[in-house]
């Protein structure tokens, strides 16, 4: 038990005169999970933000060291659970690259379509949650209505709504659902008819614009130095789309634009994500009618053994560049595996962009960084 003087002594050690130290999280409505921020305030102004992580650290990297190359893919769904399909894809690509496994075209097309659907779903959820952080509750439900269609497609084809595990080294676990193309097209029509709702409710709203414009400005040099990737870096004008720079699967065959903004503030990050959804729709439209017939999985050995050496693959998840680094000793399990998660680097920039602004701005900055805590903790 503390007595009063003890507590007073404790707080006096925490901050200087006139500073207020508050703990945001681990349970806080705006941290979307168990992120713990120790925020030092001077009145309403933020002086310093210190993230404390690890509340849901499951040591996936250590777990993967005891799983075979077929098994470790499913664990990665639990990292960034909003783009679990793309995480799985990154791991499968690594195994395919290390063992030189041929992937049939059909599998490649379906993988890309599902990746883009995942990206839209992730951005839709982010849009709703971000609007909610800023106090607008209603866009959340409108965004979820469209996201629900995607999860239904995922459920039909992959058998799960969030942690799909549909990808195996060499292709897909099973063939796509017969209704897949029809449902995706229905989704595209629905999405196109509803996307202007976000404009009315969020994008053009004068309160939203004044809350986000000029808030949390990140310069291009800082974005690179902090290792920011994905929409966060692209909003600062850093071209970093892995799909363009190091195309994997069939991204080199489709036409799409890398969305770049120059302002680097929260509104630019918002706009990048909204425009990216349209680009994803564009990619899906080009592929959905052209899925080639054929096998959905290539020939693989029963037991997968990666040759001795080091392998690195990267994919563009909804949050940025996911790198998978595997050190293999030639056995059936990896010797060391490291996930370069986009959220971890994006979080490290938070203190830089939010210090000196108001508490309300912290919500805008943190919301547009699109943090997913399991991705950061791993």
């Amino acid at each position, binding site marked *: 038990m503390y007595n009063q003087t003890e507590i007073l002594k404790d707080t006096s050690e925490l901050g200087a005169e006139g500073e207020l130290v508050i703990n945001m999280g681990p349970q806080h409505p705006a941290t979307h999970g168990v992120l713990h921020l120790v925020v030092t305030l001077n009145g309403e102004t933020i002086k310093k933000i210190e993230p404390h992580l*690890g509340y849901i650290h499951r040591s996936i990297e250590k777990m993967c060291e005891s799983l075979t190359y077929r098994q470790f893919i499913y664990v990665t769904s639990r990292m960034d659970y909003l783009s679990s399909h793309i995480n799985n894809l990154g791991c499968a690509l690594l195994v395919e690259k290390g063992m030189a496994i041929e992937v049939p075209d059909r599998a490649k097309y379906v993988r890309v379509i599902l990746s883009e659907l995942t990206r839209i779903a992730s951005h839709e959820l982010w849009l709703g949650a971000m609007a909610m952080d800023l106090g607008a509750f209603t866009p959340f439900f409108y965004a979820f209505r469209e996201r629900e269609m995607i999860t239904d497609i995922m459920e039909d084809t992959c058998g799960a709504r969030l942690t799909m595990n549909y990808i195996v080294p060499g292709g897909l676990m099973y063939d796509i659902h017969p209704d897949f193309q029809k449902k995706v097209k229905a989704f595209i029509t629905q999405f196109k008819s509803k996307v202007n709702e976000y404009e009315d409710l969020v994008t053009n709203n004068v309160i939203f614009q004044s809350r986000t414009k000029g808030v949390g400005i990140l310069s291009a*040099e800082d974005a690179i130095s902090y*290792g920011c990737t994905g929409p966060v870096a692209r909003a600062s004008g850093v071209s970093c789309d892995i799909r363009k720079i190091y195309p994997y699967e069939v991204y080199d065959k489709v036409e799409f634009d890398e969305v770049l903004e120059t302002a680097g503030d929260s509104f630019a990050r918002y706009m990048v994500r909204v425009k990216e959804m349209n680009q994803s729709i564009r990619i899906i439209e080009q592929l959905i009618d052209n899925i080639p017939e054929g096998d959905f999985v290539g020939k693989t050995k029963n037991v997968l053994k990666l040759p001795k050496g080091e392998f690195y693959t990267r994919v563009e998840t909804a949050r940025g560049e996911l790198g998978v680094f595997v050190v293999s000793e030639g056995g059936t399990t990896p010797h060391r595996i490291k996930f370069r998660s986009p959220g971890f680097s994006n979080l490290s920039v938070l203190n830089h962009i939010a210090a000196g602004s108001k508490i309300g701005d912290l919500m805008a900055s943190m919301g547009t960084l699109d943090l997913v805590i399991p991705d950061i903790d791993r």
Partner: protein
Amino acid sequence: MTNEEIKEYISSIAPAASFDETGEWLNVIIESTQLKPTMAALRTGKMQMNYLFCLTCVDFKTHLTMVYHLSATTHRQSIVIKSNLNREQAVIETVCDIWRTAEFLEREVFEMFGVDFTNHPDLRKLILEDDFKGYPLRKDFEDPINMIKL
């Protein structure tokens, strides 16, 4: 720049560096004492490696290896810098004044592998609780309660 040119360039900064070209990218293995000047030269010199996209450590049971993946947003060429460390006394200089992203990544390596980064501004545990004993990602880490062997 071709691999040969890079080799020449790095050799001029760190003469003791050895090279390995078997992997996807050029691997450079340098002494831990020479890491900092090499890194600083790679960042500011003609290579302009401004993007540190992966920093980690690997436990090879006999020694620890720090692995730095470097790239540049201008010419997109990647190289891998490695440095072997003593398991008992793993000390290396920080690079977080060159790339800001290294600050968090080094804190993670510090608690997971027990590598001590000198001159790091804020070397504390980031993920584990403050009184945690041991370095979980080392191969000899044992936790009879929380680790389940199948």
